[in-house]
């Protein structure tokens, strides 16, 4: 059973002094999953992503990628094992072109990024792949523009493109629609819906419309603890979730 999980955490804990941002989180992400992690502000969602990706070191507990323990591995080593993420606030190379942003990721995945002598732009296979990826996301026409010149909604797509350039088995999207005007959320949702179905996807989101459109499974995190997990219908009906997350009172 364990081996079939794309990503799994066992009793994962992290605290900063007295503040526990992850409190014995047991979590399973199955291959090809469309899973959402929701919870009120400060529930520890982004901390969870940071723990899983290795930005933060856990205090105790285990993180397994495809059945292998990666708890002690560096960020880079986890990425090599097929784990990719996006950030809640864009983390891009703003001065570089869109194409180069993706090229950097693909070069890294292909293991050619440490090469000293061959001009980066002449790695045609890498650049072509990057271009094709941009084309798929509908931003190829801006390939040569610097990221900072793009509208924020389009930058969000570059953020996803960079992660996809790593050909991840597990993809963590941290609020992909954050900061995007509502008229453009549709594009983001479409891109996510068209993702390769073999990718195990964990999406952290506030936008409930997006969550219910994409997720087939939802985990609710409150104060670093998993409150409940279930199908969207179960979650929508759960009185505790309504109480803590939607702010409604449970009527007896």
């Amino acid at each position, binding site marked *: 059973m364990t081996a079939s999980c794309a990503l799994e955490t066992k009793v994962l804990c992290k605290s900063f002094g007295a503040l526990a941002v992850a409190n014995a989180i047991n979590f399973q992400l199955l291959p090809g999953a469309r899973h959402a992690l929701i919870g009120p502000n400060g529930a520890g969602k982004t901390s969870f992503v940071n723990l899983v*990706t290795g*930005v933060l070191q856990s205090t105790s507990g285990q993180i397994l990628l495809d059945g292998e323990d990666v708890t002690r591995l*560096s*960020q*880079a*080593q*986890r*990425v*090599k094992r097929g784990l*990719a*993420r996006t*950030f809640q606030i864009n*983390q*891009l*190379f*703003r*001065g*570089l*072109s869109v*194409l*180069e942003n993706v*090229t*950097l*990721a693909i*070069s*890294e*995945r292909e293991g*050619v*990024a*440490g*090469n*000293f*002598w*061959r*001009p*980066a*732009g*002449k*790695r*045609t296979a890498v*650049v*072509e792949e990057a*271009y094709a990826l941009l*084309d798929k996301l509908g931003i*190829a*026409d801006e*390939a*040569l523009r610097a990221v900072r010149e793009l509208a924020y909604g389009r930058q969000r797509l570059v953020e996803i493109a*960079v*992660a996809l*350039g*790593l050909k991840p088995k597990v993809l963590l999207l941290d609020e992909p629609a954050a900061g995007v005007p509502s008229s453009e959320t549709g594009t983001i949702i479409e891109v996510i819906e068209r993702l390769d179905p073999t990718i195990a996807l964990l999406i952290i989101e506030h936008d409930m419309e997006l969550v219910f459109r994409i997720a087939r499974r939802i985990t609710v995190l409150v104060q670093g603890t998993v409150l409940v997990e279930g199908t969207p219908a179960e979650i929508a009906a759960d009185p505790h979730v309504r109480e803590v997350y939607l702010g409604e009172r449970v009527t007896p």
Partner: protein
Amino acid sequence: MTAKSAAHTIATFARRHRLRPMEALPWVLAVAAYFVFPDYLALGAQILATLLFGLSADLVLGYAGIVTLGHAAFYGVGAYTAGYLAAHGVGSPIIGLIAAMVAAGAVGFISGLIILRTQGLSILMLTLVVCVMLQEAANKMTSITGGADGLQGMEVQPVLGMFRFDMYGHTAYWYALGVLFLGWAVTRTIVHSSFGRSLTGIRENVARMNAIGTPVFFRLVTIYTISAMLAGAAGALIAETTQLVALNVLSVDLSGTILVMIILGGVGRLYGAFIGVPLYMIAQDRFSTIDPTYWYFWIGLLLVLVVAFARGGILGMADAVLRRFKRSP
């Protein structure tokens, strides 16, 4: 998207790596300068050597984005290594040069391993401290370095056993130019490579580089070591061509000055050093003999103005002018 525009985009993306005719200009000018200014070859050789130092500093500062206040550490280690060998019977300049690169590279590698894990003010302080530590060590180890009096008794043999260093600086000039050319070729190759681009990525956004699986620390140590080797070569050039090594080669002053020179030309542009270093050194040669006090004042003022109004340095301004020129036909 049509296949044609895809091909066009990809070709455009690759085109920036090609060698442009303009890139021959520095070398044409350097050769021309030899014939036009035969009385200034000694200064010319110093400028060429400092240019190599500038290139090495730009790799670290302009490309990898490591703000260092101690780059003279490597330059000084190179200068003392070559100088010490020449004073102790190993007078071959090429051997001195290689030894200097190895020694400076080793110092770069070890100090890089220690200090590149930190960020911000810490890294700035640590680069600074490494430099002052080495200077203090050189100051106290008088038996090896000659201390405050400088290294005595260097005897540099002819280059390749054929070209004797003359008092006019003919040999020095060509020797420095040759080494600079090699250094430039290496630097240019690196900054255009995938490795070089990944350094730019680190400078632009470390968090994202980590998230795409880049071994950031390893890359930084690598470029720091390479840059240290080039700085060491520059130091060796200065030692061999002037036959003089004193404590100032390890000074924080020099670490700051080299930054000033490359900022003046434009950082992270490869050719910034080619503009800034000669300009600074020629101006210094002209003006500082009149009054070094004024010199410091104007350089300080220039720095303040560059930061306030011309962040890209001279090359950056040229870019901006060209762009405006292109836009309005």
